[in-house]
C-alpha cells in the first residue's frame, strides 16, 4: 500500500468519479483554491456545508484538491489535507464504507509524509475513527501504522491529544478487533504515552489505561512497563497555572491516576514498594496521596498481594502517628493513616483462609498490639491516644479484628484504671474504653458474658458515682456517655440499678448537705437519665421519672426558678432525639409525653384564668419555649398513620376545647385559646405548644379543619398584645402555609393574610405585630419559591425606609436568612429549596444597594444591616465571587455605628481578604484604618472580628503592606492588654503575623 505516491487517492477514486455539475464544481474549486492559498480559513465551513446539503460530494472535493495533494511543497500539501480533514470532521457520518476505505488507505499512507503535514493527517484519521461504517481490520491497521510511523511524544500537545482520541474511539467501538492485536496493542500504547507531560493529555491517557485493565485487554509481558509508564507520575505534582482556561485541578489528576494504580492486583508487587517509599516522603501531599491510594488498593487486594509487605506497611503507618502526626503534622495525615490501617485490617479480614495458610490478620494484629500495648501502660500516658486510635482503627474493620484487639486491650485498660489514681488519667482511660465499646455497636452484636454480672454491677456503680459526684464536669460527662453506650448492651442492669438510684437522688431533699449544691446534683441526675435512655426498655423507665419530676417541680414552682423546669425539658428533648432512632420508642414517647405536657400547660393556664398563682411558672416564656423542642422532636419522626391519630386529638383541643384525651381532664372552665377575652391571655400562650406539634408533622399528614385553624392563627397574630403569643401565632401560621399544597385554597388564605397585614402595617397600634407576621409569611414563601414571595419581600424592602419600623425590619432580614430552630426547617419537614439564599441574594441585593443610595441619613443604616444579614448567611464561596461588586458598600458599612452591621461586614471581609487579596489590595489604606479603629470597639465580638481581619490582611502582597507595618504593630499593642482573654488571643496572633511581614524567615 505504501508504495503508492501522493497521487494514490485521486487515481484510486477516479473509477468512482461521476461528472459534477458545472456551477457547483466551480464554486467548490474557488473555495478550495482560497483555502489552500492560505487566505480563507472560513472556506472550510462552506465546503463542509456543501457536502452536508449535497451541493457536492467528498469525492468531488478530493478531485478539486487533486493537484495540491500532489504538490511538492509540503505546506501546500498540508493545507490541502487540512481542508479535507476539517470537512471530514464535520461530515464523517455521511461517508460510505467504500469511501472510508479509500480515505483510510490514503491517510495511513500520508503518515509517512513531511512532519508539517502530520497534524492534519491525524485530524483526518480522528474523523475516520468515528465512522460507523469502517470495515473490519481498518482500525487495527490504522493503529499499527500510527504505532510504527509516528513518534507521538515529539508532536505538539493538541496532536498528541488527537492520537489519544483515535485510540479512545477505536477502543469504544472496535474492542474485539483491538483485542485481536494481543499484547502488541498494549505495547504500542505504552510507547505512545511514554513521556507525556501535559495534564490534559494525561487525563485521557490514564482513562485509556483504566479501560485496558477494566476491559481485560491482554497486558502480556508488559504489566511492569504499563505500571512504570503510569506510576512515574505518582505522586502527582501539578499546580494549575493561574487563569488556566482548562480547569484541570491537581485533584482530577490524582484521582484519575489513583483509579489506574488501584485498579488491578497485577500492579500490587510494584505499587506497594512505591507506596511504602512515598509514605516516608517529607511532602505532606505525597504522604496523603500514598495513604489514600493504599486505602483504595485494599478494596481489591487480598492476602496474597499484601503478605510480603505487611511488616513494612505497618512500620510506616505506625511511625507516622506515634512519632509525628498526633504531635506536629496535620490531622489530615493522621486521619488518612488511620483510614489506611482500617482498610488493611478490613482487607485481611475479608480473605478466605485455606487450612494450610497462616492467618495474616492474626499476625498483623499481633504486631500492632505488640507495638502499642506498652504505650497504653506508660505511666506518663504520653502516647496513649495515638496508640488507642491505631488499635481502634484496626479493631473497627471487622468483628474478628475487634475480638482479637479488645480481648487483649480491655483487660489492660481496666488494670491501668486501677493503677492510676488521678481523675484526669482515669478520664483518659474511660474515654478510651468508651471508644472500644462504641466500636462494638457497629456489629450490632451483643456479647453476653463479656463482663461478668458482678463486674457489670461494679461498672454501673462506678459510672453512677462518676456521673453524679465527680467534680470535674468533663469526667462526669464521659461517664454519662459511657452509660449511654453500654445501656443498650445491658439494658436490664442499667434500668434495674441506675434508674432507681437516679430517681432516689432526684427525690431526696438533702438540702442540708452543703458540700454539694443540691441543684447541681439534680441537674446531673436529669442529664444522666437522658444520656442513658438509649434502649426502648430503659426509655420506658426514665420517661416516667422525668415527667414525675416535672410535675413535682411545677408544684414547688414558687420556691424554685423556671430553670428547674427548663432542665427537665432539656433532658426530655435529648430522650426524644434518641427515641427517633428507636422505632418502637418513638410512638411511646409521643403518646406519653405530649399529652402530659399539654395537660400540665392547660391546667396551669386554667388556674391562671381563675386568678390562682399556683403553677404559673410553667407558662413563662422560657419554659414554654423549652417544651417546644420536646414536642417537635417527639413528632417529626412519627409515621403518617400515628401522626394522623395524634393530630385528630390535638387540633380539636385548641379549636374546640376537646380535653377528653388529656390524662387529667376535669377542669373548672373551658379551654378556648382562640376566643376573645382578657382572662384568656394565659390560654393563648399555649399556641406555642400547638405550633411545636402541628408544624413538625410530616407533609403528607392532613390537618383537620386546617382553613379554620389558619384563620384563627391569623387573627391572633394580628391582634394579640402579648408579643410572645402574637409571634408564635405568626410562626405557626407561616409553618402551615409553607407546607400547604399549591392551589386555590392556598391563594385564598394568602390573600386573606395580605388583607390583614396591609392595613395593620399602614397605621395603628398593631404595626409591630403586622410586621412580624409579614416577616414570617415572607420567610415561609421565600423558602418554597412561591411567586408571592417577591411581592412581600418588596414590601419589606420598602419598610426599611420607615422611621418607626425600619430598624425592626432590618433585624428581620436575619430571621429571613437564618435557620429557624423551631419551625420552617428541613427537620420539621418544611418545604425548603436548597438554593433559596442565593436566589434571595440575586433577586434582592441590587434593590438593597439601590435603596441604600436613595435613603435618607436616618435610615441608611437599616439597608446596610439588612444587607449584612443577607451576606452573612451566604456560603462563603458564593460570597467571594459576588463580593467585589459590593466592596464599596461594605467599606462604607465599616463606618456604620451599628455593631451588627460592623460585625457582619467584618465577617464578610475576612474570607475576601484571604481569597481575593489582589482586589482588596486596592483598598488597603481604608481597610487598615477601619480595622484598627474597630479593634477598640466596646463590643467584644467586634474587637475579635476586627483583629481577625487585621490578621487576614497579612495575606495581601507584602509590598502593599510594608508601609503600614509599623503603624499596625503599634496600634495592635493596645488590644494585647484587652480585658478579655479571647480578644488578647486574636491580637497576639495578628500582631505576631505582622511582625513576620517582610522579615527574614517568614
Amino acid at each position, binding site marked *: 500500500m505504501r508504495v503508492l505516491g501522493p497521487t494514490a487517492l485521486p487515481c484510486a477514486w477516479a473509477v468512482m468519479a461521476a461528472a459534477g455539475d458545472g456551477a457547483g464544481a466551480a464554486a467548490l474549486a474557488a473555495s478550495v483554491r482560497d483555502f489552500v492559498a492560505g487566505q480563507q480559513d472560513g472556506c472550510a465551513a462552506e465546503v463542509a456545508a456543501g457536502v452536508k446539503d449535497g451541493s457536492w460530494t467528498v469525492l468531488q472535493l478530493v478531485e478539486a484538491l487533486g493537484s495540491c495533494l500532489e504538490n511538492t511543497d509540503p505546506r501546500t500539501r498540508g493545507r490541502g489535507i487540512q481542508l479535507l480533514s476539517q470537512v471530514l470532521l464535520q461530515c464523517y457520518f455521511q461517508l460510505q464504507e467504500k469511501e472510508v476505505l479509500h480515505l483510510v488507505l490514503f491517510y495511513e499512507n500520508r503518515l509517512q509524509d513531511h512532519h508539517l503535514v502530520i497534524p492534519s493527517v491525524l485530524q483526518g484519521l480522528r474523523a475516520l475513527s468515528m465512522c460507523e461504517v469502517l470495515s473490519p481490520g481498518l482500525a487495527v491497521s490504522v493503529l499499527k501504522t500510527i504505532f510504527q510511523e509516528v513518534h507521538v511524544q515529539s508532536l505538539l500537545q493538541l496532536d498528541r491529544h488527537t492520537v489519544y482520541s483515535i485510540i479512545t474511539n477505536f477502543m469504544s467501538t472496535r474492542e474485539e478487533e483491538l483485542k485481536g492485536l494481543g499484547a502488541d496493542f498494549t505495547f504500542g500504547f505504552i510507547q505512545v504515552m511514554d513521556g507525556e507531560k501535559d495534564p490534559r493529555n494525561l487525563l485521557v491517557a490514564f482513562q485509556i489505561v483504566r479501560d485496558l485493565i477494566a476491559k481485560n485487554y491482554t497486558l502480556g509481558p508488559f504489566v511492569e512497563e504499563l505500571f512504570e509508564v503510569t506510576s512515574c507520575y505518582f505522586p502527582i505534582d501539578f499546580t494549575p497555572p493561574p487563569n488556566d482556561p482548562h480547569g484541570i485541578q491537581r485533584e482530577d489528576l490524582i484521582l484519575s491516576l489513583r483509579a489506574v494504580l488501584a485498579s488491578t492486583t497485577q500492579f500490587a508487587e510494584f505499587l506497594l514498594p512505591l507506596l511504602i517509599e512515598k509514605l516516608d516522603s517529607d511532602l505532606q501531599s505525597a504522604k496523603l496521596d500514598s495513604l489514600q491510594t493504599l486505602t483504595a488498593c485494599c478494596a481489591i487486594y487480598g492476602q496474597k498481594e499484601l503478605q510480603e509487605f505487611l511488616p513494612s506497611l505497618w512500620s510506616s503507618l505506625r511511625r507516622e502517628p506515634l512519632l509525628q502526626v498526633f504531635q506536629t503534622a496535620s490531622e489530615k495525615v493522621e486521619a488518612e493513616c488511620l483510614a489506611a490501617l482500617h482498610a488493611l485490617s478490613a482487607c485481611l479480614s475479608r480473605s478466605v483462609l485455606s487450612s494450610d495458610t497462616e492467618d495474616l490478620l492474626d499476625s498483623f494484629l499481633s504486631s500492632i498490639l505488640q507495638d502499642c500495648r506498652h504505650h497504653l501502660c506508660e505511666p506518663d500516658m504520653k*502516647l496513649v491516644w495515638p496508640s488507642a486510635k491505631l488499635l481502634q482503627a484496626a479493631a473497627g474493620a471487622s468483628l474478628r479484628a475487634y475480638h482479637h484487639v479488645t480481648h487483649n486491650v480491655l483487660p489492660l485498660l481496666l488494670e491501668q484504671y486501677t493503677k492510676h489514681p488521678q481523675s484526669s488519667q482515669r478520664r483518659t482511660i474511660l474515654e478510651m474504653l468508651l471508644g472500644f465499646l462504641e466500636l462494638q455497636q457497629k456489629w450490632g452484636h451483643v456479647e453476653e458474658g463479656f463482663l461478668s454480672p458482678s463486674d457489670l454491677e461494679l461498672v454501673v456503680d462506678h459510672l453512677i458515682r462518676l456521673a453524679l459526684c465527680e467534680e470535674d464536669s468533663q469526667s462526669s460527662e464521659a461517664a454519662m456517655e459511657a452509660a449511654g453506650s453500654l445501656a443498650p448492651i445491658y439494658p436490664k442492669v442499667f434500668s434495674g440499678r441506675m434508674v432507681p438510684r437516679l430517681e432516689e437522688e432526684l427525690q431526696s431533699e438533702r438540702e442540708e448537705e452543703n458540700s454539694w449544691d443540691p441543684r447541681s446534683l439534680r441537674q446531673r441526675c436529669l442529664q444522666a437519665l437522658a444520656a442513658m435512655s438509649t434502649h426502648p426498655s430503659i426509655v420506658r423507665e426514665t420517661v416516667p421519672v422525668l415527667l414525675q419530676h416535672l410535675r413535682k417541680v411545677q408544684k414547688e414552682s414558687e420556691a424554685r426558678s423556671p430553670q428547674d423546669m427548663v432542665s427537665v425539658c432539656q433532658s426530655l428533648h435529648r430522650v426524644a432525639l434518641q427515641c427517633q432512632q428507636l422505632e418502637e420508642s418513638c410512638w411511646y414517647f409521643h403518646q406519653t409525653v405530649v399529652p402530659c405536657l399539654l395537660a400540665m400547660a392547660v391546667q396551669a393556664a386554667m388556674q391562671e384564668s381563675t386568678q390562682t398563682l399556683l403553677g404559673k411558672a410553667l407558662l413563662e416564656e422560657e419554659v414554654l419555649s423549652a417544651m417546644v423542642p420536646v414536642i417537635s422532636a417527639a413528632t417529626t419522626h412519627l409515621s403518617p398513620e400515628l401522626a394522623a391519630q395524634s393530630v385528630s386529638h390535638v387540633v380539636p383541643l385548641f379549636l374546640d376545647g376537646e380535653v377528653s384525651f388529656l390524662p387529667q381532664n376535669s377542669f373548672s372552665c373551658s379551654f378556648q385559646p382562640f376566643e376573645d377575652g382578657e382572662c384568656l391571655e394565659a390560654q393563648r400562650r399555649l399556641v406555642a405548644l400547638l405550633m411545636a406539634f402541628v408544624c413538625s408533622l410530616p407533609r403528607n399528614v392532613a390537618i383537620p379543619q386546617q382553613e379554620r385553624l389558619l384563620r384563627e392563627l391569623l387573627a391572633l397574630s394580628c391582634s394579640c398584645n402579648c408579643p410572645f403569643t402574637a409571634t408564635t401565632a405568626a410562626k405557626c401560621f407561616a409553618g402551615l402555609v409553607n407546607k400547604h399544597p399549591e392551589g386555590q385554597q392556598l391563594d385564598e388564605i394568602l390573600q386573606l393574610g395580605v388583607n390583614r397585614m396591609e392595613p395593620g402595617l399602614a397605621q395603628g397600634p398593631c404595626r409591630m405585630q403586622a410586621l412580624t407576621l409579614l416577616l414570617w409569611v415572607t420567610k415561609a414563601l421565600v423558602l418554597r419559591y412561591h411567586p408571592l414571595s417577591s411581592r412581600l419581600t418588596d414590601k419589606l424592602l420598602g419598610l426599611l425606609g420607615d422611621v418607626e419600623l425600619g430598624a425592626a425590619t432590618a433585624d428581620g432580614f436575619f430571621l429571613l436568612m437564618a435557620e429557624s430552630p423551631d419551625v420552617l426547617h428541613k427537620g420539621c419537614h418544611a418545604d425548603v429549596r436548597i438554593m433559596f439564599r442565593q436566589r434571595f441574594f440575586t433577586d434582592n441585593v441590587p434593590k438593597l444597594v439601590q435603596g441604600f443610595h436613595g435613603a435618607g441619613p436616618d435610615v441608611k443604616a437599616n439597608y446596610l444591616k439588612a444587607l449584612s444579614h443577607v451576606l452573612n448567611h451566604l456560603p462563603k464561596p458564593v460570597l467571594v465571587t459576588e463580593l467585589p461588586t459590593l466592596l464599596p458598600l461594605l467599606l462604607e458599612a465599616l463606618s456604620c455605628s451599628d455593631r451588627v452591621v460592623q460585625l457582619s461586614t467584618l465577617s464578610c471581609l475576612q474570607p475576601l481578604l484571604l481569597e481575593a487579596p489582589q482586589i482588596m489590595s486596592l483598598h488597603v489604606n481604608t481597610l487598615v484604618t477601619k480595622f484598627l479603629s474597630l479593634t477598640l470597639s466596646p463590643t467584644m465580638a467586634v474587637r475579635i472580628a476586627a483583629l481577625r481581619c487585621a490578621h487576614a490582611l497579612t495575606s495581601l502582597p507584602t509590598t502593599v503592606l510594608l508601609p503600614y507595618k509599623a503603624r499596625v504593630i503599634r496600634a495592635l499593642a493596645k488590644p494585647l492588654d484587652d*480585658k478579655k482573654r479571647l480578644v488578647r488571643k486574636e491580637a497576639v*496572633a495578628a500582631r505576631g503575623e505582622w511582625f513576620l511581614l517582610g522579615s527574614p524567615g517568614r
Partner: protein
Amino acid sequence: LIYRRSGERPVTAREEDEELPDSIDDREIFDLIRSINDPEHPLTLEELNVVEQVRVKVNDAESTVAVEFTPTIPHCSMATLIGLSIKVKLIRSLPERFKLDVHITPGTHASEHAVNKQLADKERVAAALENSHLLEVVNQCLSARS
C-alpha cells in the same frame, strides 16, 4: 520522648461575658510559648518538654512574667536561641507594661549562668535581633505551622 500537646484552652462562659475582665494567668502565658517550634526538630517546645505550665509564673497586677525553660540536654547548643525565641515571642505578645524574665531551669544546663545573663541583657537581645541570620531563625521558630 515526645510529650502530648495540651488541647486548646476551653472557652468558659465567664470568658464570653463582655463585662467581666479576665486576668492574664499562667496558662495564657504558657499558651503563648508552647507552640514555638524547636530550631532543630519539627516539634514544639511543649512536645519536647522544654516549657511546662508549672514553670510559668505571672503576676498580672504587678506586671511581671517569669518563664523557666529546660534544655533537652545539659550541653544543648541551642539553649540561647530557644531562650531568645521565648523572649521575643513574649515581647511581641504581651503589653509593654510587663517585665519579662526568661531563664534556664536551675541545674539543667552547663552554661546556665552565661545564657541567663545574655537573655537578661536588653541590649544584647536587641543586638541579636539586628543580626538577620539570627532573626530569621527566631522568626522560623515563631511562625505558625501550616
